[in-house]
């Protein structure tokens, strides 16, 4: 669509993923009647200049800085950064630290997927799913607080290993908590995957074809739901992922239902990985005690809840990185919204964009402005309400 055509269409904002955020332009939907014909994606509301700030920090401090890129995947960035430095140095991390890294990373995946499940439930009008998903998130956050000292922003990873150890007496508590999660995940699986109304809302909606997923270089559950078999934990195993048994979840339909199913089934795999790690974790040191970082370059990558998170470090032998490039997974997955939302109905727009699971800190809002009058056509809340209303109508017909 060229600019002239765009001026004649109505623009609709896509709501926030957080019901009460205010206005930034994130997605601008162009519609004809009820169908979305084009989309503009504008970001930059959370740009904080982190790569530049990192050049003024020491390697130790940089781990704390990158943790605060995102609140949900706050373990992913320090881990990728630590691995980049370890790649530069060519060091091996002690085995106990590898297991601890895996346990924390999988707990983070569980909390992130449950958070997403709650928000998706809210957008579809199932507020009960929202409340229950977040209620079951709480024990996971309690474990984080017990082991790391904080519910979020754990400060666990550092180049060379981890900062804190898991005490022996805490291990049975973690085992108990994840055992209690299994019936909860069973409940979500039944509630979400067997519900005919949700089938009607999610199946065939917002399809991302496999060739589009490859064209956009999509990552994480978004790619795996479209049949693209990529997962850094299997492709380039790090931490303890090649020391335990688990499988990558792939679906082929590429619609919102497939994306939901991938995330729910990944919860089971994460629980299984943690269970095995708790059994196999050896005694030993947790830190390789790195001293200096010589000149060189290194790349570290991990599978964050949203996909491959990659950090590149260039060092000149001083205490700070000369260049620290950070690429979060949502950077590649968010543009796929263009392929999956065009041609769909406006009422489905919220759930399609939510299923891309943009990391919160890139989540900004949308504004809907009618070009002719300059006024808002539908508010961001309005879009969420449209989606919830559609669910209500469908459930009445059952």
């Amino acid at each position, binding site marked *: 669509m060229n600019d002239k055509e765009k001026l004649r269409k109505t623009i609709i904002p896509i709501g926030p993923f957080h019901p*009460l955020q205010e206005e930034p332009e994130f997605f601008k939907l162009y519609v004809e009647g009820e169908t979305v014909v084009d989309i503009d994606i504008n970001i930059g509301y959370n740009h904080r200049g982190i790569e530049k700030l990192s050049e003024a920090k020491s390697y130790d401090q940089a781990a704390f800085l990158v943790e605060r890129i995102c609140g*949900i995947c706050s373990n992913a960035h320090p881990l990728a950064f630590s691995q980049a430095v370890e790649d530069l140095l060519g060091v091996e991390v002690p085995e106990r630290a590898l297991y601890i890294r895996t346990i924390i990373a999988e707990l983070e995946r569980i909390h992130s997927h449950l958070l997403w499940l709650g928000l998706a439930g809210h957008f579809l009008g199932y507020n009960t799913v929202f409340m229950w998903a*977040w209620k079951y*998130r709480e024990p996971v956050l309690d474990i984080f607080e017990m082991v790391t000292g904080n*519910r979020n922003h754990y400060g666990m990873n550092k180049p060379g290993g981890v900062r804190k150890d898991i005490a022996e007496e805490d291990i049975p508590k973690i085992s108990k908590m994840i055992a209690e999660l299994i019936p909860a995940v069973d409940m979500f699986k039944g509630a979400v995957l067997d519900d005919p109304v949700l089938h009607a809302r999610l199946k065939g909606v917002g399809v991302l074809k496999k060739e589009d997923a490859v064209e956009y270089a999509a990552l994480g559950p978004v790619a795996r739901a479209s049949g693209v078999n990529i997962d850094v934990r299997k492709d380039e195993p790090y931490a303890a992922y090649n020391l335990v048994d688990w499988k990558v979840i792939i679906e082929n339909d590429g619609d919102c239902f497939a994306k939901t199913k991938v995330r729910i089934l990944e919860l089971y795999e994460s629980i299984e990985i943690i269970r095995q790690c708790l059994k196999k974790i050896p005694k030993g040191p947790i830190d390789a005690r790195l001293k200096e970082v010589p000149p060189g370059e290194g790349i570290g990558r991990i599978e964050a809840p949203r996909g491959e998170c990659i950090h590149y470090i260039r060092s000149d032998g001083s205490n700070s990185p000369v260049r620290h490039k950070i690429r979060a997974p949502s950077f590649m997955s968010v543009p796929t919204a263009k392929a999956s939302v065009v041609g769909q109905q406006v009422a489905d727009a919220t759930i399609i964009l939510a299923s891309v699971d943009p990391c919160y800190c890139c989540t900004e809002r949308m504004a809907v402005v009618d070009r002719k009058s300059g006024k808002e056509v539908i508010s961001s809340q309005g879009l969420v309400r449209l989606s919830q209303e559609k669910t209500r109508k469908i459930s009445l017909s059952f």
Partner: protein
Amino acid sequence: MSISSKAFTKSLWAFHVSVGSCNNCDIEMLDLLTPRFDVERFGIVLVGSVRHADLLLVTGIVNRKGAPRLKKVYEQASKPCLVVAIGVCACGQGIFRGGYNSYDPVDKVIPVDVYVPGCPPKPEAILLGINKAIEKVKSKK
């Protein structure tokens, strides 16, 4: 205490603004709605428009794009409107201070009543912050 301020402090309606945050404080704030903390039993609800709000919950460092918006939101709020700055970033930009896109901290853009430091502050701390804002109103009149 006058009737209006007594009524004001009974059931605060809150509007949330995030300008350049990592969203951790926002999630901890949303946590207040969930069954463990259940802030609705105190009559506190999150509203969709700032014009209905008695309480403004601000998170984030306030970057360049966000500063004029924050100001506009505050101006649109009907006074009295309490402002609570949640998280170290809202209190003073935290680890992002000095960055090229960091504008001014929240209290240089709009007046702040209560600061809740933490990265992120626990939901109980946010609740305590809201409580302190209520006490501030009660002690004035």
